[in-house]
């Protein structure tokens, strides 16, 4: 019997309690309080991050082995809170402009955030499923948040039905694993799997179902079909949220799952991850070329980026895991910046979403154009931007693990992907200007954009700092 210790859960508990308090304020004061609740939620994320840094970062397994806190969980949670903060800051003005500013939005974001933070700490297949559902359910509602719009409703329904399908697959996989090993606990699982001479086919089967379901959540090919439609249909601020945070949590969950309980059977899953990675990179690169809608383009870009991140997992090494963590951090910061620009694409009070709408931005709004150009260079991995280092460490890990095919494929698809990132720059700088966008950027959006660009440009000054932190965090997965 383990001690009943809630200290490692303090950040989540804090978020849950404040989230409910915000809901009460919202119900009491109506939609006038949306702004207040947004900023209160943002403050809550900062406070939760401070609490997180305050609790002891030693390894702790509490609540009957359901919840595990270690360096990896701590660092991933910090990234998740950063992403929540960024997407809250990006959302406020956009929802106002679109006239869908309702107080439930930040509350749902907070609950999704709790789910994500619990996902990276899950130490039991049951806890994994519950945390995943908490996150997904909040996201389904957010996708359909603009009720009046058919597209948003379609996005919500599509996301919900495919999400339910993937949850079913995950549950079926878990039931097979439970059936063949008699346990749901990560620690017991790895202890059971380790001495096995031959792995029963049922366990492999369960693992395949589990991975397929989780691949839905990170939209890895061939489970990516929902992504472009949902990204396009959901309100843009929700798209930003989807692109920025949940995938990081899902990657964290997959990493813990594969590197801790299923580490002894890595031979069973590394080919799956290999395939997911290769296919995601290819589809992400080639399918994005023909996109005209920038939200769809970013959807394919996120598919491709998950492919790169998966290389680090396929490498099955501490270096690879560190590279994934670093890559996710850089991806989060770049994507926040890009969406700050996309959310500012408004003309005559209406949001526009086509790449051609960016034409001649360098003449109408030069600052916006230059920041977008920097972010696009970074996304395509051109040195000395941060995006380059993210890809560098990933490919390095692949080469260290002698996965030359995947590394070469990664480089080739990066080159292909560079085409569409650079095309945006070309449209902005060399095409005949389209009418200017409305007004100046609101403060919060400008802040996110500035910080993102500063990070992207400044990363080169001290790259070792983030690389070492990420590596230490990921090292926790391989400690046991």
């Amino acid at each position, binding site marked *: 019997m383990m001690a009943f210790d809630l200290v490692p859960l303090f950040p989540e508990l804090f978020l849950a309690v404040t989230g*409910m308090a915000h809901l009460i304020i919202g119900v009491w004061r109506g939609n006038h309080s949306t702004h207040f609740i947004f900023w209160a939620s943002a403050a809550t994320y900062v406070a939760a991050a401070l609490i997180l840094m305050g609790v002891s970062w030693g390894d702790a397994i509490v609540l009957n082995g359901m*919840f595990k806190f270690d360096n990896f969980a701590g660092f991933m949670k910090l990234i998740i809170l950063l992403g929540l903060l960024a997407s809250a800051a990006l959302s406020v003005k956009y929802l106002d402009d679109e006239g869908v500013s309702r107080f439930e939005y930040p509350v749902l974001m907070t609950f999704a955030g709790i789910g994500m933070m619990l996902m990276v700490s899950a130490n039991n297949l049951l806890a994994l499923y519950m945390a995943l559902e*908490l996150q997904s359910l909040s996201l389904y*509602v957010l996708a359909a948040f603009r009720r009046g719009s058919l597209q948003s409703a379609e996005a919500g329904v599509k996301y919900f039905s495919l999400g339910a399908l993937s949850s079913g697959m995950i549950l079926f996989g878990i039931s097979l694993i439970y059936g063949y090993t008699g*346990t749901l606990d990560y620690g017991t699982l790895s202890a*059971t799997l380790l001495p096995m001479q031959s792995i029963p086919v049922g366990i492999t089967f369960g693992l395949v179902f589990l991975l397929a379901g989780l691949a839905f959540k990170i939209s890895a090919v061939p489970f990516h079909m929902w992504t472009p439609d949902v990204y396009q249909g959901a309100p843009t601020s929700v798209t930003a949220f989807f692109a920025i945070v949940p995938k990081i949590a899902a990657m964290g969950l997959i990493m813990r799952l594969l590197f801790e309980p299923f580490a002894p059977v890595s031979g069973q899953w590394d080919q799956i991850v290999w395939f997911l990675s290769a296919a995601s990179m290819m589809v992400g690169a080639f399918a994005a070329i023909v996109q005209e809608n920038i939200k769809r383009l970013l959807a394919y870009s996120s598919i491709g980026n998950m492919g790169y991140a998966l290389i680090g997992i396929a490498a099955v090494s501490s270096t690879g895991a560190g590279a994934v963590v670093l890559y996710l951090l850089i991806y989060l910061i770049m994507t926040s910046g890009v969406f700050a620009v996309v959310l500012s694409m408004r003309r005559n009070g209406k949001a526009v979403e086509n790449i051609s709408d960016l034409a001649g931005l360098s003449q109408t709004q030069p600052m916006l154009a230059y920041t977008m150009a920097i972010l696009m260079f970074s996304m395509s991995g051109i040195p000395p931007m941060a995006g380059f280092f993210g890809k560098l460490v990933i490919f390095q890990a692949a080469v260290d693990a002698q996965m030359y095919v995947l590394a070469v494929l990664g480089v080739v698809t990066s080159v292909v992907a560079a085409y569409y990132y650079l095309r945006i720059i070309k449209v902005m700088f060399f095409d005949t200007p389209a009418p200017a966008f409305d007004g100046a950027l609101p403060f919060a959006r400008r802040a996110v954009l500035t910080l993102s660009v500063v990070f992207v440009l400044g990363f080169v000054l001290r790259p070792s700092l983030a690389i070492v932190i990420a590596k230490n965090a990921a090292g926790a997965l391989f400690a046991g």
Partner: protein
Amino acid sequence: MIIEALAFYALAGILTLSALLVITVRNPVHSVLFLILGFFNAAGLFVLLGAEFIAMILVIVYVGAVAVLFLFVVMMLDVSFADLRKGAMQYVPIGLVIGAILLSELILVYSVWGFAPETLDNRAAPVEKFEGLTNTEALGNVLYTDYIFPFQLAGLILFVAMIGAIVLTHRSRPGVRKQSVADQQARKASDVLEIRKVQTGSGA
């Protein structure tokens, strides 16, 4: 022993038959009724296994709530099931192929069903503490202690579901006349009634 076997075959047989009828009968209301019959038989099977708590939950939750909800939806929404079926026929071949592949794979998996010797301890571990207790007592012992984390998490999930349902469906319509008891009570005759003296013969 023989009664148990007979009960099993009776329940399993009716369950399979009603499951088949759920998807084949034309009238959707009959479908739902067969579904309810199926749930009852499944509950019976759980009782045979000695899992009386799950059996009761199955009846309460699935028959009591879910199936009745289905019945409401079927009867109250104007869904033309014949139209829904029309398009579905073209997907039957691919569905059969995928189903067959999945079935053969599952047969492969379950045909080698057997526990690795390493899992013996895992299987024994959860039952030791609960010798001689009924299902309900055993569950009650762990639900709020060992499993407090997923239990509370389930609470949060339901909470989010509730918020979601309200967000997506609640509309505040302007111009709806609502009764406000306080206003009604505070109303005085002098606020709304005006008594005028009308002179005789001056009316139009």
